[in-house]
Each structure stands twice: as structure tokens, then as C-alpha cells.
């Protein structure tokens, strides 16, 4: 097991900067999720850890060792690819065994030279991986004769069998159906708890990030936006990008003005309270971007915000109400069946701790 540290790491392809001055410390044993939309640089960052991409600038450390120029096979990492990348001409058994056949391992404890595993040691490890990932009935099959979920488990077993310092996972669940994805999320968390290995996991799916991560690193346009626990990035997003990327439906953001008395934010249709614990209140009359999550807007006759309903979508356990605030459209999440309908007026209330303010010019969080 080991930590992974990006120290001012950049990756450029000619004129294009894929990863820009990334500083990120991933602790030993942590489940770190790199989250962001496609093209944000998260996969490039992961591939730099793997050694599949060269680093243009900065230092990458695994444990205490700078690995910029270390061959991928000597970094003691393993990777699960989005397409699983199994060897189609080998049986499941052989696929899982393959890293053990070619790599040398530090099996005799620290200070001793690394060596190849004996046949008995290999068999034991393969059997263990097969047992943990429930692959025993399929060991003689070729990957083509497996379902997507089984292939994914073979890829996990192949990564697991070498007991690497760091697991890298590149959107490993994206080829599974929704039900299997939900199951596998839980299993990955359990697997992590069991082996305790550092995991760096890339995804664009914030549900995966929120449910599995110890910490989430949100990236956009090659830059790291925020690092924190899922709770932190959800409840205190550092800018409007993170605010709107985390959460489904995303956080409602619309323009407002600090009221003359400095005790609220005036928005079209009413006034919202200022966030709780705001250290420096912006000057009265200054323009701000107000952010409120759909689940924090409560339909209430005494609400301070009046809106006109545009549409109501019933999803079974809840309704999503679309409404207009000035030129902006906001979404309100109401549990159960909604009494509202398109064209109705609706009053909404929100607790002060659930109001977020952002600077409209820098998009950064205020307070």
C-alpha cells in the first residue's frame, strides 16, 4: 500500500493542456475518486499514475518514490480498464494468472530481492481471487463466453491477484446495466475495506463518486476544482461548477442582489435568507449568484419566494417541479405526489444553511 502524490503535475499534448498544474495528495489506503465531465483530464491523470502517459511537468510520487521515469510494470500498480481489456485468447484462469507469470514480487518481506512466484503460490493467489470475486465456475471459459458483469470481475481479479500498492480504475462500471452497477458499487466498497489498498477511481458519474469515495477530487478543463469528502463537496462547493456538477438535478443557480438592510438576498419573486455563518456579508446592493439545491426548496404557504410552475414531473417517490425565477428556470424536488400543476403559483421556503452565495465574476463561493 502506498500514497500517491501529484506535485504540480501537468500534461500537454502540443498546444492542448490536458492536466494543468495538478497538486493532489492521495493518502495511503484511501478510496479517491477523480470526478469530472469528459475531457476534464481525470483519465489522463490516472494514466499518468499508471505510467501510460508521460508527465510534461512536475513530479509524481508513489509512496516516497518519484516515479516519473519508472516503467509501468515496475510501479507496483494495477489497473481496471473501462473495456476491461481482458486477453480474449486466454481462459479466465490464465487472464487472472497473467501478471503473476511475468512480474516479480516482493514476497519474502522487505529487504529481500523480488522474485517470481512459484506455481503453488500462483495457484493459491488465483484461487483466492476467484473465490473472493465468485469466479470459480468460470475459470476454464474464455472472456467471450462471459457476461459483462463476469468480465468486469475477471478484470478486478486480475488487478487484485498481484496485491499491488495502488489500484487504478478507469470508469469500470460504465459498461454495466443500472442494477449491476448499483450492486458492484457496494461490492467495490467492501473489497476496498477488505484489502485496504489505495484506490484511484475515475468516473464522470457523481453517484459513484458520492457512494464510494473516501474523498472526491472534482476536475474541470484540466484543473482541480475541489478535493474533499463527498459531504464536503456536496454541502460546501467551492464554485458554481462544483455546485452544479454534484447533485441530480444540479443546484439551482440564479442571480440575486444583497438587500438594502444586508439581511437577505433579493431575487425575482421574493427574498431569500443569507447563508448561516457568513463571515463577511457582501455590500448591500451587490450582485451575487444564489445557489439552492432542489431538495432544499420546500413548498410552503409561508414561503418567501413566489414562483410560477412550468411543469411537474412525477417520478413515483417524488416530483420534480420546474418553475421560473426571473429568466432562470429552477427545479424543486417535492416528495410524493405534488398538488401543483403547470401555471399554478407556488411559494417556496429555504433554510439559511442551505443557501449558497457565489461571486458572479469569479464563480467562487462567498463565505
Amino acid at each position, binding site marked *: 500500500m502506498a500514497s500517491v502524490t501529484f506535485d504540480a503535475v501537468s500534461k500537454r499534448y502540443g498546444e492542448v493542456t490536458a492536466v494543468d498544474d495538478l497538486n493532489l495528495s492521495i493518502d495511503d489506503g484511501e478510496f479517491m475518486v477523480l470526478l469530472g465531465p469528459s475531457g476534464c483530464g481525470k483519465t489522463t491523470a490516472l494514466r499518468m499514475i*499508471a*505510467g*501510460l502517459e508521460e508527465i510534461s511537468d512536475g513530479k509524481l510520487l508513489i509512496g516516497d518514490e518519484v516515479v516519473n521515469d519508472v516503467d*509501468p*510494470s515496475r510501479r507496483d*500498480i*494495477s*489497473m481496471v*480498464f*473501462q*473495456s476491461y*481489456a*481482458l*486477453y*480474449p*485468447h486466454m481462459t479466465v484462469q490464465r487472464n487472472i494468472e*497473467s*501478471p503473476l507469470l*511475468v*512480474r516479480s514480487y516482493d514476497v519474502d518481506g522487505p529487504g529481500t530481492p523480488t522474485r517470481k512466484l512459484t506455481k503453488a503460490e500462483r495457484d493459491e493467489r488465483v484461487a483466492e481471487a476467484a*473465490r*473472493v*470475486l*465468485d469466479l470459480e*465456475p468460470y475459470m476454464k471459459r*474464455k472472456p*467471450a*463466453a*462471459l*457476461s*459483462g*458483469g*463476469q468480465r468486469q*470481475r475477471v478484470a478486478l481479479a*486480475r488487478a487484485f491477484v498481484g496485491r499491488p500498492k495502488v489500484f487504478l480504475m478507469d470508469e469500470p462500471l460504465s459498461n454495466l446495466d443500472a*442494477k*449491476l452497477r448499483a*450492486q*458492484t458499487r*457496494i*461490492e467495490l466498497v*467492501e*473489497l476496498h475495506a*477488505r484489502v485496504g489498498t489505495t484506490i484511484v477511481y475515475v468516473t464522470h458519474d457523481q453517484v459513484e463518486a458520492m457512494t464510494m469515495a473516501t474523498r472526491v477530487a472534482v476536475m474541470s478543463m484540466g484543473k482541480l476544482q475541489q478535493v474533499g469528502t463527498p459531504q464536503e463537496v456536496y454541502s460546501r462547493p467551492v464554485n458554481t461548477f462544483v455546485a452544479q456538477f454534484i447533485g441530480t438535478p444540479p443546484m439551482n443557480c440564479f442571480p440575486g442582489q444583497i438587500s438594502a438592510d444586508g439581511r437577505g438576498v433579493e431575487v425575482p419573486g421574493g427574498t431569500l435568507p443569507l447563508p448561516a455563518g457568513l463571515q463577511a456579508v457582501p455590500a448591500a446592493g451587490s450582485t451575487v449568484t444564489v445557489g439552492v439545491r432542489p431538495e432544499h426548496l420546500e413548498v410552503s404557504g409561508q414561503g418567501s419566494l413566489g414562483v410560477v410552475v412550468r411543469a411537474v414531473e412525477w417520478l413515483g417517490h417524488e416530483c420534480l417541479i420546474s418553475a421560473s425565477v426571473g429568466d432562470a428556470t429552477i427545479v424543486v424536488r417535492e416528495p410524493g405526489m405534488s398538488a401543483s400543476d403547470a401555471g399554478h403559483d407556488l411559494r417556496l421556503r429555504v433554510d439559511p444553511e442551505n443557501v449558497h452565495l457565489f461571486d458572479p465574476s469569479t464563480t467562487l463561493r462567498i463565505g
Partner: protein
Amino acid sequence: MSVSNAMAAPSDDAPVVEAPKKARRRRYDAKEVGLAVLFLLPSLAVFSIFFYLPFARLLSWGTYESVRGGSSYNQVGIDQYQEVLGGGEFRAGLWHSLQFVIYTVPAGLILGTLLAVAAHRRLKGIKVFQAIFSSTLASSVAVSSVIFFFLFNPAVGFFEVSWQSDPSWAMFAAALPAIWQNLGLAFVIVLAGLQAVPDEVMEAARLDGYGPLRRLTRITLPLISPVLMFLLVILVIYGFQAFAQIDIITKGGPGGATETLVFKIFKQTQDYGKGAVLSVGLFCVTLVVTFFQFAILDRRVHYGDE
């Protein structure tokens, strides 16, 4: 542990059910059969005119013996087949054809594959090399033979060697242009095969610790084995059918040392009956060799859907 239990989703882990190997034979009614024949008719007509009928004619030609230098023919029946195919000339021709195949096929296949592996990478200007390596395919057999004829000409050649007149080297001299051309064909087809191998599989192999040579022998070559199999079969057929290289470089000489089966067929201008028998012999040899290639090697070929 729960990881394994939870993962065992019944829907996902249900054994892959294989379709019954043989579907029950269904009966076709007359209308369906008529329609099928109608659809087959155009290709049947083309094959009949250009292949089946000429082949039948060839078979029958083989039963006629030339008299007085081909001015008339006597029907001698199947005897001529026994006589020619059991004779020394057919054996010699077959041996020379085999030599040509042995010289041209492995060399062309291996060199073409190595070049394709070398050129299959993302480098600036690699397309130029890819074009150069595949260019041998674009030149005609005659042109490539003439190039090699002059390259190895004892009087005016770049290499002043007398291979073409040395019985133990003549076949190799005739094989050189074919190796050169096979290399281009193998290059183009293997390169296409390599491009179909997913990058992620090769990256996974790199992370697993496979070095460049192991990646080639354990991952790349097995994955492109269907392509290699195809190349092997067609190169062997090309080898048995080669003619222009021999005609231009050695004319079958010296002393008949490079007279392959095709060359011997070509020489039967006075005896069409014997030529027909030799042709049928060549056809059978090619058929049997191809059959054995499939029977023996196909088991070692990995097709993606197995």
C-alpha cells in the same frame, strides 16, 4: 464474504446458454426452393461458364494423348492420368514448386509481420514508411522480377553473382521477387490486423509486466492469428501458382532446376493432354495442402467469438 455473494446476481451469472448445435431440419416447399434457385442462378451461370465447364473440359482433355507433336489426339482414357501423375516429371515439378513455396512463404510472412509490428505505432511520418513498405504490393510481378533479374545479373547487376545460372541457387534467385512482394502483402494485411487489436489490451499487458517481446509472442500474434492463417493459405496458393518470376529470371533453368509444376504445364505446347493432367495434379495438390493447413493449424487460431 458478501462481495462474492452480492455479486452473484442470478440474472448476470446464469450460465451462458448455447444455442442447440443443429437446428431441426425444416422442410422447404416448392415455392421456396424455386425462389432459392432463382437467386442462385446468376452466380451459378457465371461460375458454370467460367469455372465448372472449363474444368470439366480440362478433365476430359486429360484423357487424350497427343500424336505427332499435337497434330492429332487419341483418347487413351484414365491411363494418361496414371502415367503422368506417377511419372518423374510431375514429381520433379512438384518438388520445385514446394521449394518455391518454402523459400517464399515463411520469409515473406515473417518479414512482413515484423515490418508491420515495427510500423504500427503513432509516430510522426510513420505513414510514409507504411506507404513504402506496402509499395511492393503495388508493383506487378513482371516489374519486380525484372528489377531482381538485373539486381542479381552477373554482368550488369548491382550484386555481381551468378545465382541465376547456379542450379543450387537458381530457385532462390527466382524466389526473391516473390518474397519481396509477399512481404508487402503480409505487411498491409498484418498492419490492418494490428490496428484491430484494442489499445487497452496492449496497455493492460504492459502493466501486467509483459515486455515488448512477450507482448508480441503472447498477446499480439495470438490475437492476429486469423489474419496470419489467411495470409499463410493465400501465400501458399500464390507460391504454387507462381510463374512470371521463373519465366523472367531463370526460364526454368539451369537444366530444369527451377521448372515448377506451373512452368511444366506452360511448356506443354505440343501436348495439351499431358498439360491438362498436370493442371489437374496442381489443382489437387493445392486443394490438399490448403485442406491440411485448415485441418492442422485452424485449431491453433483464435477467433474472437470463441
